[in-house]
């Protein structure tokens, strides 16, 4: 696109790219370097053996996957109602949900804390999954509804003429067609859930249920701050997401840019 630069321009562009790469890489290199300080790779094995790391990993996975599945289903199901069936009041329903779009979870911390304690959900997966899901629903509804609204309106009528019930239409026709937007919802929700720090900090107390984002502070709460292990833990926490991103880069790119705009 800008491929016809003269020599000075090309040199300048190249220098800027190298500078950008260096600035991006330095913190990553420092993190790796610190994680190997002292005992080298033993830091990593010690993190894995001295914390229930795999347990935390499994917990993060349980919380994130449950949230993603719930948000995908609830979002698409609502958009089917709002954009295809459109019973009277759909517009109001959509507005009611979308008011929560930009709401920070911490704005609900007072009632959440009180209610979660009162109904005995404290220290369960649900205490994290439910608030995370609810906070993510407005985004799921927004992008799904925009997508479904863009589908040809004849689609549903054709399905009905073929004798499909709403239930069959939803699962057999709408869900497969909406795969691109479902992956957008999945990427955004998964990243938010996997990286969530506040909710587990507030509502999960037992080590058995704790999630990965709490591991770095785990090494700080021990009496002495064990710096290399914090960094080793940070790398172990990040590796799965970074690897998934690199492998699925294309899906990530299109998904993230579509999710921002749609």
């Amino acid at each position, binding site marked *: 696109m800008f491929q016809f630069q003269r020599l000075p321009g090309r040199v300048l562009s190249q220098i800027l790219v190298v500078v950008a790469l260096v600035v991006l890489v330095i*913190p990553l290199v420092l993190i790796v370097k610190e994680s190997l300080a002292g005992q080298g790779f033993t830091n990593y094995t010690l993190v894995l053996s001295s914390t229930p790391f795999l347990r935390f990993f499994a917990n993060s996975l349980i919380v994130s996957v449950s949230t993603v599945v719930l948000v995908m289903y609830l979002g698409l199901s609502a958009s089917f109602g709002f954009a295809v069936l459109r019973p009277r009041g759909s517009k109001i329903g959509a507005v009611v949900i979308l008011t929560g779009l930009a709401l*920070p979870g911490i704005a609900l911390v007072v*009632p959440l804390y009180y209610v979660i304690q009162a109904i005995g959900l404290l220290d369960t997966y649900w205490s994290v999954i439910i608030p995370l899901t609810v906070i993510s629903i407005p985004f799921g509804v927004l992008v799904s509804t925009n997508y479904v609204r863009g589908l040809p309106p004849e689609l549903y009528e054709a399905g009905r003429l073929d004798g499909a019930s709403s239930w069959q239409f939803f699962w057999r026709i709408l869900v497969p067609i909406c795969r691109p937007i479902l992956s957008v919802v999945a990427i955004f929700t998964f990243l938010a859930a996997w990286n969530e720090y506040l909710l587990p900090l507030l509502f999960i107390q037992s080590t058995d249920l704790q999630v990965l984002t709490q591991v770095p502070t785990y090494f700080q709460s021990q009496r002495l701050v064990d710096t290399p292990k914090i960094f080793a833990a940070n790398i172990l926490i990040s590796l799965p997401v970074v690897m998934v991103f690199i492998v699925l880069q294309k899906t990530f790119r299109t998904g993230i840019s*579509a999710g*921002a705009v749609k």
Partner: protein
Amino acid sequence: MATQAQPEIVVSTPPPESPGKGRRPLALSDYLWAMPALILVVGVIHAGIAANVFYSLFDWSGVGSPTDFVGGANYSKLLQDPVFWQASRNTLAFAVATVAIQLTLGLALAILVRTKVRLRGLLRTLVFVPVVLAPAVVATSFRILLTPDGGVNHLLQGLGLSGFDQAWLADPKTAFGAIILINVWQYTGYSFLIYDAAIGQIDRSVLEAARIDGATTWQLSRTVVAPMLRGSHLVLIVLGFVSSLKMFDLVFLTTGGGPGTTTQVLTGYIYRQVIAQFHAGYGAALSIVLVLAALVFSILQVRLSTSESR
């Protein structure tokens, strides 16, 4: 614009809601589809906001039932609370600074990877790696790297720049700037990605015509490309403000709002009042301020997304 890789979207608005015209009779079951989402959102978000309004009228620790009714006292206290104003100013300053820097850098990089430079593939991948990291991971790492004896200062000394080493996060003069730069490092890749996708949609012939007229890359970027990306600018500005409003982990895990309260933000101040100091009634009043600010951006985001999709 910038609706990348969504080939099967047919641009069509739904038929107007004229009764009778192809509309099926009202079926109760049509309501069931949106009900679960609606019940959850109303039951948690709306009921939560209502509960906040109620709690904010009490002097309440958060334990047991609220009994000490004080009316609007929490709100008048809030208006005179210097920490509240500082946290609000910081939240706004954080939003303005990160949005301005990340949009500028993101756009510059998106244009750079379209020139004929080497390593652009590496840059495309690498710039986005920090975006997928947990803010908790990034914050705990930088907190240690930025101590007086940490990796960043060692690096500066190694480069012969020992005059510049600093207690970055402990010095009120540099702490807030350091937090902003950490965010810029982590999230410039996001702006880059949006701009990169949008530039891919620009009609090449427009650029080539300008090129034949003798425009330089800088002139092209400034006078042709940047104005064509208006939609992306708007989206990134709104999303940048939304995420600044939500930002909690980064400040909480680097400075905890300190030194003193110099880097405190609204989310962090709510946490402090409610969780650390048991001022749940006052925290609920603070939450209402956050809710109102968020509402403005929810409306903007919906407006933007529905107008973009047409």
